[in-house]
């Protein structure tokens, strides 16, 4: 069985600060990582590989080639191979999903495509359903559990108001939630092994028949800073409680 996991390189959102002068988020010089939930998707793929013989796990990312470093971590976890597709200068979700779908078709012979429920920087949850739509295959979103039984995959979806059990034949695209598993940390053996695993680079423009105009352009990015008083009572709890109640009273919040 062939599993393709779509993984996104994102800026480390924990490091983002707002530039007070320009009121823009400072994105330059910030560390990059693989989006959190995509690691859950990789973990799930590796678990399926452990349970099902002859399974190959390919990690796929539309990202500048400097994402090699981040992708290596996924190979160290246990994925077999990675494909990096470089995006054009200007792109939107439509462009990236088209590139991912074209790359998946080029990899060919796929059974299961896994995505994260949403990426941690933009949190859209768009890409999975878009890819499934382009490939014209079923989508099972928000899976919090899944298993393969014979020629079928079963998954349990969390739809907030309902829990829905699904089954599908292959090929199928599944997006996973953070709760589906706990991603492993790469072992030393894994890290050493990753060095010899292939990372294939494709130029995005070769995958597209023609240049794609983005259907959406970002016209502004405004920082939203959150100033707080940061008064912390660290002494004994009795004192802390007393002072807190006085403060809340002064704020006019008690009755």
């Amino acid at each position, binding site marked *: 069985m062939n599993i393709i996991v779509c993984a996104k390189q994102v800026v480390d959102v924990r490091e983002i600060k707002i530039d007070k002068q320009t009121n823009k988020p400072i994105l330059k010089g910030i560390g990059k990582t693989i989006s959190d939930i995509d690691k859950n998707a990789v973990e799930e793929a590796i678990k399926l590989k452990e349970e099902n013989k002859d399974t190959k796990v390919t990690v796929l990312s539309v990202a500048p080639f400097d994402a090699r470093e981040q992708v290596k971590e996924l190979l160290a976890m246990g994925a077999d191979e990675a494909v990096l597709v470089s995006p054009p200068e200007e792109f939107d979700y439509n462009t990236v999903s088209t590139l991912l779908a074209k790359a998946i078709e080029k990899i060919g012979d796929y059974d299961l495509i896994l995505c994260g429920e949403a990426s941690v920087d933009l949190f859209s949850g768009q890409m999975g359903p878009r*890819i499934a*739509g382009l490939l014209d295959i079923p989508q099972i979103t928000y899976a919090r559990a899944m298993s393969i039984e014979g020629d079928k995959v079963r998954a349990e979806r969390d739809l907030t108001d*309902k829990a829905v059990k*699904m089954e599908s034949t292959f090929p199928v695209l599944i997006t996973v939630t953070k709760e589906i598993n706990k991603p492993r940390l790469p072992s030393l053996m894994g890290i050493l092994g990753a060095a010899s695993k292939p990372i294939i680079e494709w130029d995005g423009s070769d995958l597209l028949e023609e240049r794609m105009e983005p259907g959406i352009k970002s016209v502004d990015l405004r920082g939203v800073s959150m100033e707080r008083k940061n008064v912390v009572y660290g002494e004994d709890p009795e004192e802390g409680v007393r002072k807190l109640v006085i403060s*809340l009273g002064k704020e006019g919040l*008690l009755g």
Partner: protein
Amino acid sequence: MVLIYSNNKKLTLEMIAKGRELADEQDGEVIVAMIDEKDENLANEYISHGADKVFLVESGVENFKAEEYTDIMANMVNDVESGPVLIGSNKYGKELASRLAAKLSTGCVIDCTDIYMEDGELTVERMVYNGNAISVERFSGRPGIITVPSKLFDPLKKDEGRSGEVIEKSYDVSSSYSNIAGIEEMPSEGVDVEAANIIVSCGRGFKNREDLHLAEELADALKGKVIGCSRPISADLKWLSEDHWIGLSGHKVKPSLYFAIGISGQIQHIAGIRDSGIIVAINKDPNALIFDSADYGIVGDLYEVLPKLTDAIKKEMD
């Protein structure tokens, strides 16, 4: 032409109000799609709240599947040559909107926080980077798909005199080869954290489900009575139903007073509480991130602090 769809009535009424505004700027119509809801009364209610046309569509399938609903919506968009498509932003709406956008090769914005026309183009705002920034995005080309969270817009007043058309429609649907094997209602306690003025929120600092009563007692003392929680309390441990879940992937709240108790203050939790008035944190770790996002904090064990705080607040409120 603005096309609107949600499986949720309130959200549909809210989107009709915005749709009306967008349509009026272009002398267009507001069309509401009702799929698998044979309900003429509701269709007429949508008209009296601002819709021009309501399409009643039967999908022929038993339960919602994004694949099949995408077919219906794509056909409808082509049928009416729709401009903006507004879809209610719950999990059903989001996966439908995204697949639909791919089928129509168009732009899509999930969870907008505002929609307007600027320089003649459809423009939307949305939160990015965990609430650290607002991105303003402009569509070029038709139709443009937007998912709209609840309570963003107020429904228009009912006008019994408004007239419109209710039209039965049918579209070709190719069925998906996935199967629904079972549907279970998830528990809901019916709390509305988004409307609450005082919220006491619990995190993994609580050791047992039973201990949550400590938070309830504080909420009672504050006459707030609304309990919130971090993602793991609801999604992993299932100690509270998902209507309590606050954060990036949960509810966004704006109470005047928010207590974060035993919550570490990861950015994804903070994304849901940024618009709160005063934030109070109780955490035993003096270096916990939550103190950076709080107005007041007590460093201490919640099992010791909470009962004392509840008592002190009771006395103060008497």
